[in-house]
């Protein structure tokens, strides 16, 4: 395959970025999107040029490191797929592919296609945990948890924290991420003790990080490589409202 790649280049967070075009020939249909970029970088090195910096790690769709907007779609046009699991057979020979970083004010660009997603960590630090000391846990089977609840929590916990929800949202809202993190714990009996505080604090941190507001149109869930449901957003809306009301009336 032969491709024209239109790639965003930016030297640093405060530098001005712009698109750069490259032609890449001999791309295998079986290679992944990142392997195609590896190939481009080898070509650039051969020409004495600086390779394109992009984030990637596990390359099997679970670590959530890769973060490209491909032809306007976070992780590319395929559903339920991370960039590293997107294969070149999904593109046409001769196609022009536009590659951009995940764009959001809360995700400043580090270099080229690499963005800083530490805001997600701060959201988790503000409440995405159950406060249990190592060694103080009761037996694993002490609290039965219905399979339905366990499965539901698992669906939420499947979030890989890649940030595609933010990148695909026209408002750069982080509600899908935050709500999945909160719902995972709020759905389990172990998470009940801190449920209210969790909802309030995580939302507060999310707001402070500069994410936009959820408009309920579901682009996040459509772009999510793990198909996280909008239900969790509804649940966080509910949990947050309840927590706030309780606070007012207590």
């Amino acid at each position: 395959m032969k491709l024209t790649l239109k790639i965003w280049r930016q030297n640093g967070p405060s530098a001005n970025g712009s698109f750069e075009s490259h032609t890449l020939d001999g791309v295998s249909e079986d290679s992944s999107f990142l392997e195609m970029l590896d190939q481009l970088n080898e070509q650039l090195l051969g020409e004495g040029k600086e390779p394109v910096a992009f984030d990637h790690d596990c390359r099997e769709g679970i670590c959530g490191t890769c973060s490209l907007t491909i032809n306007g779609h976070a992780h590319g046009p395929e559903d339920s797929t991370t960039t590293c699991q997107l294969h070149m057979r999904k593109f046409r020979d001769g196609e022009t592919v536009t590659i951009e970083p995940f764009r959001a004010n809360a995700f400043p660009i580090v270099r080229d296609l690499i963005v800083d997603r530490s805001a997600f960590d701060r959201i988790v630090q503000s409440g995405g945990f159950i406060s249990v000391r190592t060694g103080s846990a009761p037996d694993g089977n002490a609290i039965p948890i219905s399979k339905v609840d366990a499965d539901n929590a698992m669906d939420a916990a499947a979030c890989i924290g890649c940030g595609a929800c933010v990148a695909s949202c026209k408002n750069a809202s982080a509600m899908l991420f935050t709500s999945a993190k909160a719902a995972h714990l709020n759905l389990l009996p172990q998470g009940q003790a801190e449920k209210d505080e969790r909802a309030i604090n995580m939302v507060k941190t999310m707001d402070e990080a500069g994410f936009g507001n959820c408009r309920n149109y579901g682009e996040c869930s459509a772009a999510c490589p793990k198909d996280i449901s909008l239900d969790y957003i509804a649940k966080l809306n509910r949990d947050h409202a309840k927590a706030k009301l309780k606070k007012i009336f207590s």
Partner: protein
Amino acid sequence: MNLDPQIPEGPLSDKWDNHRFSSKLVNPANKRKYRIIVVGSGLAGGSAAATLGELGYQVDCFCYQDTPRRAHSIAAQGGINAAKNYQNDGDSIHRLFYDTVKGGDFRSREANVYRLAQNSTNIIDQCVAQGVPFAREYGGLLANRSFGGAQVSRTFYARGQTGQQLLLGAYSALSRQIASGQVKMHTRHEMLDLVTVDGHAKGIITRNLVTGGTDAWTADAVLLCTGGYGNVYYLSTNAAGCNVTATYRAHRRGAGFANPCFTQIHPTCIPVAGDHQSKLTLMSESLRNDGRVWVPNDKESCGLNPNDIKEELRDYFLERKYPSFGNLAPRDISSRSAKEACDEGRGVGPGGRGVYLDFADSISRLGESAIRERYGNLFQMYERITGENAYNRPMRIYPAIHYTMGGLWVDYNLQSTVPGCFVLGEANFSDHGANRLGASALMQGLSDGYFVIPYTVGNYLARSGAGSISPDGPEVKEVLESVKERTSQLLSPQGKRSSRSYHKELGQIMWEFAGMARNESGLKKAIGQIQDLRDDFNKNLIVPGEGDRLNVELERAGRVRDFIDFGELLCRDALERNESCGGHFREEHQTADGEATRDDENFAHAAVWEYKGEGKEPTRHKEDLKYENIELAVRSYK
């Protein structure tokens, strides 16, 4: 080199208890005076940093990823073992211990493995309390499955992403400590060297991958939780960033490296498709519960559509060779059988390096929907990567490097030969011997981090006292300068070849000569080729850009440089270990029908390598493994 394993006195089952009692404690009020560095934030590092922070120590945790939640523990799919015996099927701590030692082909330390089995039950409790959404039965209790050659159901799992869920548990505990200020997290930092003062580990040098800054960090103890070295093969199931630099640099500073030749090949990976390939993707071994492995009886049929090959023309080689374990034979055995079949020319798919994993029988027995429910995500992943639908035609699988049992030598306290430098998880060598059983890596990482290190590091600190050296001290400066010097060396030769091309070539050498089967002449050849590769690397490498900013090529060049040196060490170890055991298969040592033969007389030891300086041959030491509770037996899965 002092290789005293520090195994506590007493009967096996009391050793850990005795040891905890005889360990010195750090006064709670004094804990905040101690600084501990944790390198790596996977299951071992994340759980250790969280727990130590919780205890009151000042912890600095480093990872090369952009967030601690992405460490490669995340990729483990299958599950985590624990001797809970919830299924009432005859499991016990002793059985898990025995299975692990036997699975490791009797090359692990009894006392460590027993402790691992003891801790396994606490791990499940801890993780459940953290909110890890383990699979459950309709009655609300935890579900189990049997996994990777075990005859009891002791594996706990969270759909196909047990690793991610356990890591998120550790990460959430870590996040809580970060929020409270007990742990300072340093992301996008890569450890480049270990600082020792009077022989004790007192700090590390890191590169800030964003700014390019080289910084020194000092502490009272250093914990290396930096994972395995599978990427020395270039193609492996490891993440692209996994590297040996932290452990290899510590090795250069005096930490003995044990059993580097013990590498594990995972039998169920998606075969290589072409030159572009940058990694191999593993599919959970649980697939073997319902899939049957076969190749055609004769070479001529290999090119045919598998559905057109008649039943009697298929060789279900695992079922044929290992009737009692069949398709569930341990990883090393299954892998090697697949290689043999391909070596005979009966491999399938591009390049002839693949065997079929066929679900047709299970689908006709259980229905497609049952199979879809069990493995839907894996079938989907397979289709995404290969473009083939495994419901209609058998999957193609081939073994790939997956886990490395070798690592820095540690004693019972997980302390390396450098006092104050502790090594946890896959980075150490201790628990899996020559082969690791499925679902045991997660168990070990968490056992080390949550339940072992808090005691043993406390014991060390209580005995050595607080008082970190200053980051401006002369010993620190010296190491810092040497790291900077090395960086400028990597940047200076403006040759023609990228670090990736060297890495690829190294991988090819390693896979060919030190892969699934090894022999003396091949290993010698490999050592020679690696030395040539190193010379070429030093002259002909190109790294564009500067060192004082984000520079991905520079990062890779440094890692590849260490892989080259380490690859040579691995080959040396494989050459010296003149026996077949576990993941280490020497062609010279096999029975007539191709089974590995161990040499307990001469090799019932851990081989520990001591670094002797640049360009000098390392020295091989031995820690003899004493089996007081288990009788060494031939590992048979027939």
